[in-house]
């Protein structure tokens, strides 16, 4: 289980996260939502150990998070890959040293589910569309069947239909393999449809942790209500009642 206990973190002298306590069990999905600059991506960096917390502790089953080799789907799809290498080489990075052979069946299944032709993996990042690069990022994150996957805006470059297919694939694999998923997203419709819990961040603090139902129907704070109403105005959520 991923556990954050009263975590604070700074970017330079600015407090980017303050007193964050969260937990995430295997097989579950936690969506982290909030406006730009709320600290969502900083939260991911802190969990991965890229940014050291100034206070508090972050653990996976009581040990350091790095012991579980978590995966990350990065926000900027193209810059997530080495521009000089074919995508396949980057995709195989998480399993370097772990396996002698390329897991062809796994790649095949993920490519099919992500609607990516396998030959595309022989191209370089600049030779594929941003939406394709984003799905290759998801492929790389899931190839080694990690126990914890951090998704930073994983569907932002995909069209509405592909978004739903990709979300479905992630949910199916999660059911089969039981990984814990933390998903940072602007898309509240996605959060409500796929998360077990939604954490709303505002100015580096947790405003509310709610189930999708209570977030969609009866958000507690004014800010969460504003977010919910914005999602309805944008067509990402249906108005209830």
């Amino acid at each position: 289980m991923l556990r954050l206990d009263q975590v604070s973190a700074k970017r330079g002298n600015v407090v980017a996260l303050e007193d964050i306590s969260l937990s995430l069990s295997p097989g579950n999905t936690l969506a982290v939502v909030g406006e730009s600059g709320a600290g969502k991506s900083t939260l991911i960096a802190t969990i991965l150990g890229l940014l050291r917390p100034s206070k508090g502790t972050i653990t996976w089953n009581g040990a350091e998070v790095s012991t579980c080799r978590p995966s990350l789907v990065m926000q900027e799809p193209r810059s997530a890959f080495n521009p000089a290498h074919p995508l396949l080489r980057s995709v195989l990075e998480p399993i370097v040293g772990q396996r002698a052979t390329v897991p062809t069946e796994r790649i095949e299944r993920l490519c099919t589910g992500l609607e990516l032709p396998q030959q595309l993996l022989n191209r370089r990042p600049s030779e594929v569309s941003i939406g394709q690069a984003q799905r290759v990022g998801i492929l790389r994150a899931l190839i080694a069947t990690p126990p914890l996957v951090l998704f930073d805006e994983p569907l932002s470059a995909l069209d509405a239909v592909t978004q739903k297919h990709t979300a479905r694939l992630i949910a199916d694999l999660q059911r089969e393999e039981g990984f814990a998923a933390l998903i940072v997203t602007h898309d509240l419709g996605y959060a409500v449809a796929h998360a077990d819990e939604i954490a709303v961040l505002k100015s580096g603090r947790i405003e509310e942790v709610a189930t999708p139902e209570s977030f969609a129907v009866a958000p507690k704070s004014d800010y969460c209500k504003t977010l919910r109403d914005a999602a309805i105005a944008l067509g990402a959520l249906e108005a209830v009642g």
Partner: protein
Amino acid sequence: MTLHVSGLSAARSGRTILHPTSLEIELGARIGLVGASGSGKSTLGHALVDELRTQGRSVAHVPQSPDEALDPLRSMAFHWQEAEKALGLHTGTADQPMLFEALKIAGGDLKKRPWGWSRGMQQRFVIAMALIGSPDLIVLDEPTSALDPVVAAATMDLLDRHLQDRDTAMMLITHDLGLAARRVSTLMVMQDGEIVERASTQDILERPQTSAAQSLSAHRNWMALPC
């Protein structure tokens, strides 16, 4: 008065990406151009803008990426003055404070170049430039893609208010039928470089005829997922 274009087409590397397309747009119309990634929406948007400008019409274009609209070597203030000049306005006559306040970019430093602003702020700056005057048509290509939901909703609301009392027609290009459904009265669905369906928003949502429209309609909302 109606805007009219005919025979718009485009090819890239020998492949036709926009088949010959004709359009009529009534003044004050609210049109959504929807379709999957790569269906030719942005290409049609560009071709439409170019053709109408050739005809002497005034068209504001908010491209998908702010990089297309902003010169990295020029300050934001320069861009604003150019937009005013293009509309024949004297410098400083546009209601910049109101637009910036409504789009929540009032804190942006106009002396900076585009890269001194975040991508979301750049996108809103380009939208503000498009709202300076009353052109014949505003074409908005995925205008909320870099914005968080609160800011995106505020931006779309400002757009609605702005267009309310004007003859300016609007074309909203998006892959998100859920977004378009709330903002436009007519939808055009694109697939493989062609407009395959054109009907009222309600008809497309309730009685989509083509496979492209059916797919978009079925997937427009996260909560109504087809299995």
